């Protein structure tokens, strides 16, 4: 450091305060998750290795979709189409995978590519329409939600596709020390998402646009490009999510994925990302998705019905946002 003429006020104390504040956000959600785990660990079986595997399996798909949703919500958008697009991607991939006369490895590879391409297609559509005509993404994706669902039904004639290669099914149920392989893939995606959002210029500008679009534009950033990119990234993750879904459940059907978008939004919100954009993180989203998964599993172990579980999850979403308001007040002071 050779900057001698700095007019820095007493720095030390403030530095610590600022960093703690940023860490506090995620730490708070982490503490909530740990508290939940401790509470449920009093029920038998909760911490058994088979149940942990089960929870992580349940969390995986929602987590993958939530990562993409985080990008979209960070720029102040929303993507309601992910559930339908997931089903569309799945039936496209399923159709490719079951094409007669293909080598299984080639079939799976092509199917994966086609699912991602289909996801990108819808992501581009969402992004281009909402950015070009400045239409709220809520409305655009409400439209593509219907388009994708209809397309999935049309392509398959409302039938379910199954009998995928055996190796593909085996891949879907693989575990490492009790951790599902698919969950590990999701964790890698979280890491990539975290890296992109915190370490790259691209991520920085996304946050900037979410906070103040006009300031970002006047600073020379191509807001249109970034908006389309965020939706496209979300589409890529929906494509990956579709393949994960197929690997786990061995079917591809035009009626899967209903309501997935709401679970993904819930995970993002519980994870502390602001619905108005500009604030949040993928790590928070990971914790949010885990909270939803742990809650669902634990409540069932407690003997509550699935209906009760749904009600409680609803309360948790609201509670998370209320807590966020208090956290905001704390950081502002």
């Amino acid at each position, binding site marked *: 450091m050779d*900057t001698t003429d700095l*007019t820095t006020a007493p*720095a030390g104390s403030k*530095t610590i305060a600022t960093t703690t504040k940023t860490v506090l956000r995620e730490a708070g959600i982490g503490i909530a998750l740990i508290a939940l785990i401790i509470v449920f660990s009093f029920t038998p079986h909760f911490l058994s290795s088979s149940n942990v595997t089960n929870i992580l399996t349940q969390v995986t798909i929602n987590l993958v979709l939530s990562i993409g949703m985080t990008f979209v919500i960070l720029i102040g958008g929303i993507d309601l189409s992910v559930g339908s697009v997931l089903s569309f991607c799945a039936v496209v991939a399923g159709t490719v995978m079951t094409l007669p006369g293909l080598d299984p490895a080639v079939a799976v590879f092509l199917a994966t590519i086609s699912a991602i391409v289909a996801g990108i297609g819808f992501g581009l559509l969402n992004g281009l329409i909402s950015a070009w005509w400045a239409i709220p993404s809520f409305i655009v994706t409400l439209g593509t939600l219907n388009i994708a669902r209809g397309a999935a039904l049309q392509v398959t004639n409302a039938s379910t596709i199954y009998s995928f290669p055996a190796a593909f099914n085996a891949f879907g149920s693989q575990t490492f020390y009790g951790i599902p392989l698919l969950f590990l893939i999701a964790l890698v995606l979280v890491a990539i998402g975290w890296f992109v959002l915190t370490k*790259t210029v691209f991520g920085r500008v996304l946050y900037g646009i979410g*906070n103040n679009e006009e*300031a970002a534009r*006047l600073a*020379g950033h191509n807001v249109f490009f970034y908006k389309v990119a965020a939706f496209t990234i979300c589409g890529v993750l929906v494509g990956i999510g579709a393949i994960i879904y197929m690997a786990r459940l061995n079917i591809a059907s035009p009626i899967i994925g209903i309501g997935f978008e709401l679970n993904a939004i819930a995970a993002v919100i519980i994870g502390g990302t602001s619905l108005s954009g500009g604030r949040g993180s993928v790590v928070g989203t990971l914790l949010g998705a885990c909270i939803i998964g742990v809650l669902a599993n634990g409540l069932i172990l407690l003997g509550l019905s699935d209906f009760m579980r749904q009600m409680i999850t609803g309360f948790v979403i609201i509670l998370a946002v209320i807590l966020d308001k208090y956290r905001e007040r704390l950081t502002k002071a």
Partner: protein
Amino acid sequence: MENTETAGASAPAPAGAVVEPVLELSGVKKRFGGVVALNGVSFSLRPGEVHALVGENGAGKSTLIKILCGIIQRDAGSITLGGEAYDPHTPGDAKKAGIQVVHQEFNLLPYLSVAENICFEDMPRKAFGMVDFRTLYEKARKALDAIGLGDVDVRRPVESLGVAHRQLVEIARALMGESRILILDEPTATLTARETERLFQIIAALKAKGVAVVFVSHHLNEVFSICDRVTVLRNGESVMTADIAATTTDQLVTNMVGRQLAAAMAASRDLDTGGRTALSLRNLRHPASPHAEGVSFDLRYGEILGIAGLVGSGRTELLRSIFAADLPLSGTLERDGQPRRYSNPKQAIRDGIGFVTEDRKEEGLILDMAIAANVTLASLRKVSRLGLLNKREETRLAQQLGGEIKLKYGNTADPVSTLSGGNQQKVVLAKWLANNPKILLLDEPTRGVDVGAKAEIYALLRGLSEKGLALLIVSSELPELITLSDRILVMSKHRIAGEVAREDFSEERILNFAYKDERNHGHH
């Protein structure tokens, strides 16, 4: 650094003993977390007086007003209104008690009509709770006529009005209620000279009716022209109250900043007319401009060119069309003699242009982001490789520029929203300086900036022009333009109405050009 503590200089005038104050504050304190906003404010307001409240940004004026109108509650101290304890918990309490406030930020409902806005607190009703539109429009019409806004249709949606008119509608709205005390927070910031004059007449009329007016302003000349008494706040304390006749600008400024201001405000400039032409406009026309001829002028390196004109004369639009924030309708732009047609701000920035916008909160800064991130927002390439941010390099650049512009901050990782207005404005400047621009467009570069920071920004801008930068400055404060500029162009109705050379600078001359079209209009 010497501190001239002239606390409580002139005690209340003898008249104070005769007139009971309508509002009396003593020892009012307020903290936000660890930050002390008010640290013992005493203040008394007499019926029928206009009392100025002045102080640098962050001195506590806004906090004090928020307490008086019930938005926040004080921690300690006493307030009496008309001799009784006054402790409002909601803005409604304050209104009922007869305290009306016109806030600095607009609180209008943009999609509702002017009339609905004016009467929003007390909508005239018919049976079944239906709105009585006839009475509504009548009341609103009367309210607007009373403040001389006869030309505004009360049915118009507020969003279709310009800022100056919105401000006046806001005042009309405040005056609808029964007012014992009217608080005006920076009411003239968006008004032109003529509208300000109109506002002053309204204030005089209210005063005659016995209403006490609290007048918050950065413009000391206004304070001296319409106020009876003045109270200065500094660092959350009331440091001086005096009759306006018994004080001077210097005394007020000294009390506001707590130290003698450097003579920076009045330094003279050597005219350097030898610079090459940096930017040349020919008939550049913004989409909002009614005239096909547009705007033409040349800007040289090392020159500070001021743009004067009334609100709505097309000054901001001019800067926006140069920067391609709005695409010009027609006309040409040459940069270093080469014709250019920027299709977005990015291209203008690459071509060495920076744009310090009028509204730093809406367009200039990303408030929740770190100081460093704001500084590098327009030059992320400099602090990154292959798309990866180099945070250490970013911090270094922010600290280096922070030092150059004398930014007062704790840590470059703090959100920029923690800074005072003047320092926020410096961050906006730093953002563009990080790009080593050749031309800086500045729109109201010292709006909402306190006196001390203002002088620093002036010195900074002069330094930049001495380094050879070409500066184009739009300002509504004529003294500012006169202090800074080498040349002033006066705009009117999106055209250049006149040019004034430095040796001919005078407010009168500039205003003559600014009002030229208006006056011609009046003769029709």
